[in-house]
């Protein structure tokens, strides 16, 4: 292989409104090598990719291409520098033809006029190299997702590619298609193209990648050769082990009432949703803290969304207090005492343009109905009491929620849900992307809530956290519950082994 790296990122830092998405990250990409970027949700993979492909700019740090400082100010500039990208969400144009999607921006032209015939044949050839046989003149939206993904890859390959970035290119491909893609990747590799391959399928990473860089919470964990890194080590590095003051949570007691004689407050029997979750059963008792563990895409979020009415179920029975119910919306669920906090704090949770007070009182007001407006005094009282109880900082209720740190935003969201006095609280990654201090506070808060009789479903990518907080743990892999056991009977190693599918 050649001398220096083709792409060299050093000291990369990116910040979004108070949240640090990437901090002091170094990253190298070599010619003729397939390099995988690994990490959980919010680890900073996408942010790093977006920086390399010119979608966003680094707040600090440098990117060198072939040893030269690169001017990656726009996706167009990155493409001129030889960086081709297939993004995670298929970023194509469904309203245009397949040929245009492959070649738009570099169509063959004759006297300034697009040579449609030449374009169709060029696109056809590019697709044929991927083993795809479709009419290049057909509209993209008429093809299924997997084909569209291959079209996106064909687009990336028709450019003069020096660096190929593939962000989850296989998420909708079947096995044959993946094999075909890998064949192309290998052939490009032999030609000296540097390839960045991101996937959360460990098997694929181990099959195709030479080198792995692991990120966690926006920081670099390390760079490893694939052959030197065992799967279990990789997962460990992705999920992390943080030393946390365990004393805070030492007083965990498993309530006795939770044993078999009592009725579960929510019991789901074989609930499913087509294409999302196969039939799955879950039960949760009063005062219980149920942890859901599993890797990204294992089904942990899917279960949470079905239990709390965000997505509706296709099959199976969901019982709340023993009565079969159908939850049509989160509002439905809330009226039955089930509150859901999304993993997407920014998109599905906090409304940054509203004040902390408004964010806290929002859900309660919605439940009361908009015609019975809460008085300002009542709102002030309510928000003040929650700010105090949850130690939200800064403690000014009139501060815009968007200005708060991630941890405090999370607390505001919790306050909003707690103001509804729910019986079951479903928390999807409540501690993701927040600092260790706030993390411990939230864990403590959740344990306190459970002690006061509330039931909580706690989802986290960090196995250790789940193990420490929960009474009972469900471990998911490939959308299936593979372990359902008391937290005390599980060890971190056994969890790790279960999650990674390696032999324990």
């Amino acid at each position, binding site marked *: 292989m050649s001398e220096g790296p083709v792409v060299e990122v050093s000291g990369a830092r990116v910040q979004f409104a108070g949240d640090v998405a990437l901090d002091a990250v170094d990253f190298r990409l070599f010619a003729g090598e397939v390099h995988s970027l690994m990490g959980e949700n919010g680890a900073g993979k996408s942010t790093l990719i977006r920086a390399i*492909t010119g*979608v966003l700019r680094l707040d600090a740090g440098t990117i060198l291409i072939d040893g030269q400082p690169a001017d990656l100010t*726009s*996706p*167009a500039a*990155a*493409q*001129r520098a030889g960086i081709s990208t297939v*993004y995670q969400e298929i*970023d*194509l*144009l*469904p*309203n*245009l033809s397949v040929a*245009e999607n492959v070649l*738009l*921006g*570099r*169509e*063959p*032209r004759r006297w*300034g*006029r*697009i040579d*449609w015939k030449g374009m169709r044949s*060029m696109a056809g050839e*590019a697709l*044929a*190299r*991927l*083993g*795809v*046989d*479709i*009419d290049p003149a*057909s*509209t993209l*939206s*008429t*093809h*299924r997702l*997997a*084909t569209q993904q*291959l079209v996106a890859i064909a*687009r990336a*390959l*028709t*450019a*003069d*590619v020096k660096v190929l970035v593939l962000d989850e290119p296989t998420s909708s491909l079947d096995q*044959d298609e993946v*094999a*075909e893609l890998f*064949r*192309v990747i290998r*052939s*490009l590799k032999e*030609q000296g*193209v540097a390839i960045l391959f991101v996937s959360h399928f460990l098997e694929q990473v181990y099959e195709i990648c030479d080198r792995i860089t692991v990120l966690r919470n926006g920081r670099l964990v390390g760079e490893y050769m694939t052959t030197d890194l065992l799967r279990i080590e990789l997962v460990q590095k992705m999920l992390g082990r943080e030393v946390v003051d365990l004393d805070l949570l030492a007083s965990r007691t498993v309530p006795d009432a939770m044993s078999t004689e009592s009725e579960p407050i929510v019991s789901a029997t074989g609930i499913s949703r087509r294409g999302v979750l196969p039939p799955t059963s879950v039960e949760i008792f009063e005062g219980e803290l149920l942890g859901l563990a599993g890797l990204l895409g294992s089904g942990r979020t899917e279960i949470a969304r079905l239990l709390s009415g965000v997505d509706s179920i296709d099959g199976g029975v969901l019982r709340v207090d023993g009565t079969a119910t159908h939850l049509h919306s989160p509002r439905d669920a809330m009226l039955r005492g089930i509150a859901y906090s999304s993993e997407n704090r920014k998109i599905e949770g906090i409304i940054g343009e509203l004040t902390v007070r408004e964010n806290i009182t929002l859900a309660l007001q919605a439940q009361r109905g908009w015609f019975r407006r809460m008085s300002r005094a009542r709102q002030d009282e309510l928000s003040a009491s929650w700010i105090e109880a949850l130690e939200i900082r800064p403690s000014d209720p009139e501060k815009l929620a968007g200005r708060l740190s991630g941890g405090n935003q999370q607390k505001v969201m919790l306050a909003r849900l707690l103001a509804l006095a729910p019986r079951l609280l479903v928390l999807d990654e409540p501690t993701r992307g927040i600092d260790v201090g706030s993390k411990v506070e939230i864990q403590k808060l959740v344990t306190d809530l459970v002690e006061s009789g509330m039931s909580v479903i706690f989802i986290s990518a960090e196995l250790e956290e789940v193990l420490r907080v929960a009474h009972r743990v469900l471990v998911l892999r490939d959308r299936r519950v593979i372990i359902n056991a008391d937290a005390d009977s599980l060890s971190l190693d056994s969890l790790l082994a279960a999650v990674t599918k390696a032999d324990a």
Partner: protein
Amino acid sequence: MSQTNVAAPTPTAGPATKRPPRLRIRTSWVPVLAAVAILIIMFLAAQLYFGRFLTPRLLSSLLVDNAYLMVLAAGMTFVILSGGIDLSVGAVMAFTGMLAAKLLLIGVPVAVVIPTMLAAGAVSGLIIGIMVQYFDVQPFIASLAGMFLARGLCFVVSLEAIQVKDPTVLGLQSTKLGDFEWYLTPTGIIALVVIAIAAWVLGYTRFGRTVYAIGGNVHSARLMGLPVARSKVLVYVISGICAGIAGLLFTSYTAAGYSLNGIGTELDTIAAVVIGGTLLTGGSGYALGSLIGVLVYGVIKVSITFLGADSSWTRITIGVLLLAFVVVQRLIVRRANRH
């Protein structure tokens, strides 16, 4: 175009995606064909009802009387395809007409006046485009501001109508080419040429395809490295220039500049474009469709006049038709998405 070579696929592995049947009408043409069908049905119905409707004279006048609207619709097609809207065109058309009338009145030669009209339209479009692209103003608001500005400027030029006596300008409308029955005026020719150019640019240039890309998904277009910012501004400039041309045609048609000309014309234009099969959300449509849309509008107007009904019925009919078309488009889009 340099390409990276990849070895040919092994004959065994080949994820086969079914090739769609060759002769299938693209979904994007369906609304246009629907508009053509409606036009034909209206022609036939009017012919049956009025007896003498489909005459060469009427067909010729249909084209000539709506020439200004065709030009506006051509420009509007660009804007709507990009996912935007331009409410300023009626007012800009009136303003450029006023400006021309005033300049001609004070003795400015027509060879200067006409380029000035086009330039005025282009500048107005440029301002709107910059507001939309660089200041993130909603196209609706930006072009509304442009509309008020242009309309206000009309009153600054003159409150009264200004008669136009220039033989060149009037000749655009009064020169009749052809025999007594079939005829075409220079205004009609200009309109057809503008439509043809618009169709060519949209179909065969990189800029044209970028407009479709932006209307399809701005985000994707940017990630693909297409010149989004430039194209988005240019779309409004084109619409402005078209408004300038329409100002010329309308002045020639009415032989005067008047500050209350073209009130509501922007809405007629949008209606014609949408009836002609362009999706209001952008990304799908054709300049030829907009031509059909204008003709549908014209036939409705003429039929209402033939009936001797109040002219407000034109608007009502257009409104109903527009509603029907928008619903049809939604259904088509929904069906396409279900794929």
